[in-house]
């Protein structure tokens, strides 16, 4: 009975003659999903990213200890059944701090993507749609920012604005929008010559309306792919800023800052710096694998 239902669901999704727009969309999404799952590395990436999100949401239930609770009698304890990743120099449980640190990581990635994505998208679409002088100026600025050393500039920004999570996010966002603008521009240059844009123009739609309603939505998928591929880089830059003491401030459990805290004891208490670094590696790897998988699935249309 169940098998029969799932069979008919699949037939409905893969139907050659969809009855409604919703069915056609669902069918397309299902085909893409199947294309994506054929690449097992991409699925591994998705699992890692979903685990990260799960960890962030359910942190209070997963973490065995309070991430901020100091216990000086338990300081620098090695890996054990009580403390899966040992404890740091203030006796805090490192595993619990890593679990709560996933919230900080997700916050950084999320905020950078929601600011940089739309900004790059709009700039790229405007440049691509108007062409001419607007395009030349916007792309010049894009190229200039692209040629900057990103990390050093982010450092200088944070140094000027003062250390802190918000300023680190702003600094990363300011230096990382250009690739998005480029991607969106390339897409727009193709779209702007299509017939339906001409039709919209003939109907008297304003440029603003055409860009926002007819161009931007079509550029969104490539920007999403681009940002998935970018997230690992954002995580590494944020961790670097945190490591230098310019990102999230103590006692916030940020992974880069946790590595910095374990630096002094690296030769005697290796676990303090090792596990947060492993967490960064796994999460960055997850985003890279997911990004590759999504790109392959969307490109193969």
């Amino acid at each position, binding site marked *: 009975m169940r098998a029969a239902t799932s069979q008919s669901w699949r037939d409905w999704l893969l139907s050659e003659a969809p009855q409604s727009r919703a069915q056609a969309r669902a069918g397309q999404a299902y085909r893409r999903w199947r294309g994506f799952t054929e690449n097992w590395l991409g699925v591994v990436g998705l699992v890692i990213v979903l685990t990260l999100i799960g960890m962030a949401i359910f942190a209070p239930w997963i973490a065995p200890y309070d991430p901020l609770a100091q216990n000086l009698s338990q300081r620098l304890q090695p890996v054990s059944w009580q403390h899966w990743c040992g404890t740091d120099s203030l006796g805090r449980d490192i595993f619990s701090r890593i679990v709560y640190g996933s919230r900080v990581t997700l916050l950084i990635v999320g905020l950078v993507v929601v600011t940089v994505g739309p900004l790059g998208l709009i700039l790229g679409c405007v440049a691509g749609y108007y062409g001419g002088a607007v395009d030349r100026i916007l792309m010049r600025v894009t190229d200039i920012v692209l040629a900057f050393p990103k990390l*050093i500039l982010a450092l200088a920004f944070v*140094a000027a604005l003062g250390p802190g999570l918000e300023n680190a996010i702003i600094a990363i966002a300011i230096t990382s929008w250009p690739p998005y603008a480029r991607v969106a521009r390339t897409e727009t240059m193709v779209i702007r010559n299509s017939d339906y844009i001409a039709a919209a123009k003939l109907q008297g739609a304003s440029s603003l309306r055409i860009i926002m309603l007819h161009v931007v939505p079509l550029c969104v998928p490539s920007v999403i792919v681009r940002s998935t591929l970018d997230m690992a880089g954002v995580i590494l830059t944020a961790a670097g800023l945190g490591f230098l003491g310019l990102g999230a401030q103590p006692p916030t459990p940020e992974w880069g800052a946790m*590595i910095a805290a374990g630096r002094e004891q690296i030769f005697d208490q290796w676990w303090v710096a090792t596990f947060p670094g492993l967490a960064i590696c796994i999460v960055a790897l997850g985003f890279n694998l997911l990004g590759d998988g999504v790109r392959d699935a969307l490109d193969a249309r």
Partner: protein
Amino acid sequence: MASARSTAKLVSAEVTTFAITMLGLLLVTFLIGRVIPIDPVLAVVGDRAPPDVYDKARIALGLDKPLWQQFLTYLGQVARGEFGTSVMTSNPVILDIKRVFPATLELATLGTLIGVSLGIPLGVAAAVYKGRWPDNLVRILGLFGYSIPVFWLGLMGLLLFYAHLGWVGGPGRVSVAFDDLVTTKTGVLILDAILEGEWEVARDAFSHLILPASVLGFFSLAYISRMTRSFMINELSQAYILTARVKGASETRVIWRHALRNAAAPLATVIALSYAGLLEGSVLTETIFAWPGLGRYITASLLQADMNAVLGGTVVVGVVFISLNLFADIMARVFDPRTR
């Protein structure tokens, strides 16, 4: 000759781009210098200065002029290499940078050498044996290269190769016993030691250099091998390769003499970009390895809120970075007519 003229034209276009990019960078560092919450006048005259002293200092610093005039003044200062005085070392920033820069250069150069000498053969192998283990190895290296924080890899390297295995020297540029034994000539410690015939010092310096350079070299290797692979796959699918094979050229000859030579121009670009990337990556690596280079100078100044030093260092890294970008572009355009 038409080609020489068009080359000149290309180069001049690139130089214009370079000048505009530099102006952009300097505008950014200038603006960063203006938004700092520390009042530069108070930093000079102190908190309790009477208003007239304060005003005089403000005028002396040129802070009463409109912003664009201040920017022009700033451009002039940068052109003359005046970045102000470092609060941390109380030297002019430019002297500090001259002192620490060779150490960074040494590190990034050896890192790039490691990346090139391993990355290109590996990338070629991956392209030739596509889908087999060299290809998978390059893919895995690439993934790790984009996923591992450089400072964490450095710490793990120290833990394994220094603390546990004892194969390499620890943090710092040379062991304490050898400190200040060699007079500075080139600023590159190994060269200086060899020039003076101090082989012991040279060997010790090398054992300190090899680990941080390998850490940087790993990232360079990951990037270069990945790019070599894709350039080579592209070249090997071209018709001229078939022609060469039909003419009876050996496979070795086809791969190294025909395909790789045509991939050389884009590869030069990639190597220049990777070198620039390593200069930037050295900021974090030097912090880990207590390497007395520009990166550590910048981060140490950051913690002291020494903005003159931070911005001076940023400008220098930026200039080198943008110059390498320009160099890479020119190389690609001059040596590869297809990119014109």
